[in-house]
Structures are given as structure tokens and as C-alpha cells.
């Protein structure tokens, strides 16, 4: 760690360091941030090639951003960089969206929530809220009076308008208006209410004949303000929100939030609870990938495959229902363990599932994977190179379809994953078919993990006994990642020592996936928009939060 400090000090003498937290924190003045960021990525010794998370912050006396950076070549080391806007009344920070493309949407989110404008950002529109929204909701002084922002039943106007902020030689910042689409472009609106967007995503697509020229992703049609809601609730109360973000990764998301709180509290989770959690995570992954299989097939018009996928998914849901009491939104993990012990039939049911899965997977491959139409629609469509996947921080099956080894269970093993034997599924195709195949192979690997655990669930407590009645985290901030069904899910918590979190940020994998849609779709047919979306398999409530 001291090497990194020396190297950064060499590049940017103004940088100061804070140690003692989870990672090294570098504090950089805004004027030097862009130059340092470029070096952080390109310097061979540092090589921070992944921008993991961008967290906007309001510290009451200043506004700023914490960037979490990861170096894939350096043992997946992470550092945090804190950049504060020089002027709180009129906050500006230099963009890094030209260095890490993933920052494009991330910084738009920060602008939407905190009003921090990013100098040289190409497209400084709001991300989630209406363009006529008054105020920035995650600021601590936000006025939530419903009279200011009533429910409007009129459409948003000037949707094509965008702007960027540029700095001239004297350091003066100027607003430059722009347009999303040129006047002579033919734009097809797609969504927000369309079954093939897998939720309520709106894609405005500029086409030349049938060829896609540009896709403008408009998000926020299911933005529920979860991060702001969390600030008014206690830690046990915020757990249930994670089940409702990516409802196909409910267990993993909640596992992540629990791990983050447990890390801050220094709680040791009993081994029985850890094993149950991992088993639930893997069952959830199977159910999620089965749904992805069914929906991909249905988006191509193969309705039969959908019925096959759902047949096995129901079996997984039955296991959940017996133990957790619900088919979806299970609310099973709690701080320090799980809420209830497994059902007496759990082991038997899991074994029954494991017994049929290999046979059923063969059936899927026979039915759909080998189908010539499916092959033609998926192969060589939606190309995403490994470099782009890293630059856009596309994790999960979509990133592994581009041959990027990014499985959080391998690189930052958590819970009992370090002891388990399983293979990280990689494909070299970089296309929709590769992403599809990664999912199908991951079902096999999840079964393999379950096989190792199903007979080895240790006896013991299901919840740590020393969980405080009122959960108060010490002052500080924490970041925790897990491998959810669609990629690396991250939770950031900042605590000021009270029973409510000061700031909670959820870094959802799907948010990065929509950032890459424009790149993936360019040059392909408009019909491919559906299959590219289906193969990336994003879940919209996870994006919007």
C-alpha cells in the first residue's frame, strides 16, 4: 500500500492520504483530479482499470464524490478517491467519463441527486427524475414538500435538449447547449411500456433504414428513491429494499447489505447461517438464469422454451416458499444470520432439484441452444470486446461472455465461497450467444456448489447471539461487494454513529449494463435491439432503485 502512496504522491504532490479505513483513501483537489485519474488508469505500476463505484456525497459543509477504483492486474486491489467540489453553492467537478466510460451514466446520476455538474461531461442531463424536477433529492437540505413537485400528468418537454459545461482558459465555466439527436435523424421510440424491455426502460433509437445508429437510454420510470428512504430508517428496516431492487437476485443483494453491516459491526456470522446463505444465493442464481433463459427465448418468439424454463423455476420457488414463506421478496437474510431455520424438507427438495437439473439442461440445449434461428439471432450480435467490458465495468455473465474473469466469488471471496470448488465460466465469443452460454453453464456450476453443501450443513445457531438490539454502526464508511445474478453488486454505507445510516449507495450491476447498450447496438438491426437487451439481461428496478 505504501508503494501506491509514493507513486500517487509522485504524480500529484497535492494529494493527501487517509489510512485506517478499509482501503487507502486519496483526497485530491478537483483541479488535479482528471490528470491523476488518467495516470491511475494508464500507469503500469497502478493500473486501476475498473471504476467500481461512484458515490455522490453531501457532507453538509461540502459536496463531493467518492470514486472506488479497482486494479484487475494488481490482485483486485481497491482504493478510494475523494474529490470535493470547490464551491458548494455552485458545485462543479471535472468529469472522468472520458477515462472510464462507465462514469458517463454514474456522473449523470450524481448530478441528478446532488446537483454537482461535471465539467466536460458530454451529456449532462438528469438520469432518473423528470427534466422539470425542482431540487436535488439526496442533498441533506432538500425540500420534500409535495407542492413543489406534484404528480404531473403532462409529458416532459424538450427531451432532446442536453448540455455540457466547458472551462475556458481563465477557469470560467460556460454552459454549452446541445441536442441528443440531430434534426435529420429518424428516431424510433421504444418503451417505456414494452414487454421486451424487461421492465420499463425507454430506448429512443435513431435508425438508418433498419440499422441502429444510436440508442439513447432513458431511465427513471421506476425510480423509487430507495437511497433517500434508507436515510430515514434504521439498519434492520432498510434490508427489505434490497429484495425489491433486483428481485431476481433478492438473496444475493440482501446478503451483500447484511455483510456490509456485519463488517462495520465486527459481527461473526455462525457457520450454519453462512452455509444456508450461500445455498440460497445459488438457488436464486439458478432461478434467475432460468428466467433469463425463458425470456431470451420468448423475446425471440420461442414461447415453448419459456414454459420449460418456468417449470424448473417453480421447483426452486417451492424450496424458497417452504423455508422463507414467500415465492418472491423472501426477506430471509437478517443482520447476523438468517431469520428462520431451514424447512425439514429443504435438503430433500434441493437434492430432488439437483437430480433433475442435468437432464433438464440437456433438454434446453436440445430445444433452444441448437436451434438454427436462435443461433442466427444470437451469434455475432451485440459485440462487446474485453477492453470495453472492463472500461464500462460490465461484470457478471455479460462480462464473462467477453472473456473477462470478474467473478466476485473468486476475486474477493466472501462467506464460505473460498472453500468451495467451482469453475468460473468464461466464453470468448463476446456476443449475445456467449452471454447466453455463460448463464447456462453457470447453472451447472451453481448445482455443483449446492452438491458440495447440501450434505454438509453444519449444526449450530442460525443467527449470531451478540447482535445488538438497536443497531448503531461506528462512524466511518464501508463498501461490500457480492456476485449477484447479473454481476457485481456493491453496497456503500456511511455512518455518523446514529441508528440511521448517513448515506447508503447501491452499486447495481444492471446500471452499468444499460451504459453499454448504445455501444453494443450500433450497426446492428433494430430487431437485434431486443436480443441484445435480452442477452445482457438487465432488470430495470435494479437500475433505477
Amino acid at each position: 500500500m505504501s508503494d501506491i502512496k509514493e507513486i500517487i504522491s509522485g504524480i500529484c504532490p497535492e494529494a493527501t492520504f487517509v489510512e485506517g479505513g478499509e482501503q487507502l483513501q486519496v483526497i485530491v483537489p478537483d483541479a488535479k483530479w482528471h490528470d491523476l485519474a488518467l495516470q491511475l488508469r494508464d500507469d503500469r505500476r497502478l493500473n486501476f482499470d475498473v471504476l467500481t463505484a461512484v458515490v455522490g456525497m453531501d457532507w453538509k459543509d461540502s459536496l463531493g464524490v467518492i470514486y472506488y477504483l479497482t486494479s484487475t492486474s494488481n490482485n483486485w486491489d481497491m482504493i478510494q478517491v475523494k474529490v470535493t467540489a470547490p464551491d458548494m453553492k455552485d458545485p462543479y467537478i471535472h468529469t472522468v467519463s472520458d477515462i472510464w466510460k462507465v462514469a458517463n451514466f454514474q456522473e449523470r446520476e450524481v448530478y441528478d441527486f446532488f446537483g454537482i455538474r461535471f465539467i466536460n461531461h458530454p451529456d449532462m442531463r438528469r438520469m432518473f427524475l423528470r427534466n422539470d424536477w425542482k431540487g436535488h433529492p439526496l442533498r441533506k437540505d432538500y425540500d420534500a414538500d409535495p407542492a413543489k413537485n406534484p404528480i404531473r400528468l403532462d409529458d416532459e418537454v424538450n427531451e432532446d435538449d442536453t448540455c455540457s459545461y466547458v472551462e475556458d482558459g481563465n477557469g470560467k465555466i460556460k454552459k454549452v447547449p446541445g441536442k441528443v439527436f440531430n434534426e435529420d435523424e429518424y428516431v424510433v421510440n421504444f418503451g417505456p411500456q414494452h414487454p421486451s424491455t424487461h421492465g420499463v426502460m425507454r430506448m429512443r433509437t435513431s435508425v438508418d433504414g433498419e440499422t441502429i445508429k444510436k440508442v439513447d437510454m432513458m431511465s427513471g420510470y421506476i425510480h423509487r428513491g430507495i437511497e433517500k428512504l434508507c436515510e430515514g430508517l434504521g439498519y434492520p428496516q432498510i434490508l427489505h429494499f434490497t429484495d425489491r431492487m433486483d428481485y431476481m437476485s433478492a438473496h444475493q443483494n440482501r446478503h451483500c447489505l447484511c455483510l456490509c453491516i456485519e463488517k462495520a459491526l465486527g459481527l461473526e456470522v455462525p457457520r450454519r447461517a453462512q452455509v444456508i446463505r450461500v445455498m440460497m444465493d445459488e438457488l436464486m442464481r439458478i432461478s434467475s438464469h432460468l428466467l433469463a433463459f425463458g425470456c431470451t427465448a420468448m423475446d425471440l418468439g420461442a414461447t415453448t422454451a419459456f414454459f420449460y424454463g418456468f417449470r424448473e423455476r417453480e421447483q426452486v420457488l417451492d424450496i424458497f416458499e417452504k423455508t422463507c414463506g414467500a415465492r418472491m421478496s423472501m426477506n430471509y437474510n437478517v443482520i447476523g444470520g438468517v431469520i428462520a431455520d431451514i424447512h425439514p424438507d429443504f435438503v430433500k427438495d434441493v437434492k430432488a432439484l439437483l437430480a433433475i437439473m442435468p437432464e433438464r439442461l440437456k433438454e434446453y440445449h436440445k430445444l433452444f441452444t441448437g436451434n438454427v434461428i436462435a443461433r442466427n439471432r444470437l451469434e455475432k450480435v451485440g459485440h462487446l470486446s474485453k477492453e470495453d467490458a472492463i472500461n464500462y465495468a460490465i461484470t457478471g455473465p455479460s462480462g464473462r461472455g467477453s472473456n473477462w474473469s470478474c467473478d466476485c466469488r473468486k476475486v474477493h471471496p466472501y462467506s464460505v465461497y473460498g472453500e468451495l470448488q467451482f469453475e468460473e465460466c468464461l466464453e470468448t465469443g463476446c456476443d449475445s450467444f456467449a452471454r447466453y452460454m455463460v448463464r447456462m453453464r453457470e447453472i451447472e456450476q451453481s448445482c455443483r456448489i449446492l452438491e458440495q453443501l447440501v450434505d454438509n450443513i453444519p449444526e449450530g445457531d442460525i443467527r449470531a447471539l451478540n447482535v445488538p438490539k438497536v443497531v448503531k454502526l461506528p462512524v466511518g464508511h464501508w463498501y461490500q461487494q457480492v456476485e449477484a445474478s447479473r454481476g457485481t453488486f456493491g453496497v456503500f454505507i456511511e455512518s455518523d454513529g446514529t441508528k440511521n445510516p448517513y448515506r447508503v449507495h447501491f452499486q447495481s450491476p444492471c446500471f452499468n449494463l444499460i451504459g453499454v447498450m448504445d455501444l453494443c447496438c450500433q450497426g446492428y438491426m433494430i430487431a437485434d435491439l431486443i436480443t441484445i437487451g435480452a442477452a445482457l439481461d438487465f432488470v430495470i428496478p435494479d437500475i433505477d432503485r
Partner: protein
Amino acid sequence: MEVKIKSMKHEDFKDNEYIDKLVEELNASGANVAVGNLNKLINWGISNSLWPLCFGTSCCAIEFMSLGAARYDMARFGFEVARNSPRQADYIMVQGTIVHRMAPAMRRLYEQLAEPKYVIACGGCAVSGGPFKNSYCVVPGVDKILPVDVYIPGCPPRPEAFFYGLMQLQRKIKVQKFFGGVNRKEKREEFFAAHPEERGQLS
């Protein structure tokens, strides 16, 4: 008068008195034999071929997909033809939270539905805003912007709850009077009075 539907026994419903009272009130002035029988015929047809417009925004939509799959199989009741265009649908199935940005689109889709039209609010979020009720940008219940016929509570509701709600809609349809202007019918002029900005675009 009992409201009978084929799929479920009368005594298995929990709110029979309420419905029976409603029927009594509706028929207080008596019904013409010819019109009454025509109404019955039309309502029999509508109630057994309800085509939903799936307005799925979050988790409830996935449970609705389970309804479409083989295990629960909503085709048994005539609900299976899920439409994606409001022109072809009988009712909106609101599945999930409605937020401020979505509200205009939601309202527009409702107005595009052909008469007679119904709305079902599925899940806590559509019913009241659910766990997100206190948020700055969530519509606290879809009934703030649309008239709702049936509420299905749950987070998300079980498939069985979906069926119960859908059968309630069937029962509701069975007692409606298709002839005689009892249904909600918006007159052209009333519509323009409520939406002056649409006049230039439509007329």
C-alpha cells in the same frame, strides 16, 4: 340475485353480501327482459375473455409471468392473451410501483384503452405506494391517477391471489349494465374539458 362465475363456487368468495347488495341496488328499478338478457349475454362474453394490458414495472410482473406459465395457467379462465397494445386490451393490470415520471404514460395508456375498460392494482405499490409510500417521487397508489376496479394486496401477491382478484373483476363485470349508460363512458366534450391541451392535436 347471486353472481355466478364458472371458475369458483359462490360460497368460496368472501364478500358475497356486498356484491349481492350491489346487485340489488342496481336492479332496484327492475330490468327490461330483452335488455337484461342481452346484457347477460354480453357480460358473459366479456367476463370470460378478459385480455390484460400488462403494465408490469417490477416484481409483480414476474409473478404474472408465472401465471402465464404451465403450472398456474391462466388460460383456464380466459385471461391468457396478454396484450401489449391498449387498443386490444380490456383492462390494465398495474403491476408495480408507479412513479412521477411514469404517471403521464400510465394515464395516456388508460385513455387509449377502448370502452368498457377496467383497472386492477396488483401489489402493495400499486395499491398504496407500498414500502415506498414516503418517497419523493412515488405515486402513493395508482388510484390517485386512475379509477381502480379491483385491488390485489401482496408484495408480490401469490398467483392464487391474482386469480382471486381476476375473478372479482369477472364478478364485477357480470353485474354491469352494458346498455343504458351505466358504464363509465367519457363523452368527447367532457374529455376535452378535462384535457384542453389535447384539443389541438386530436380535433
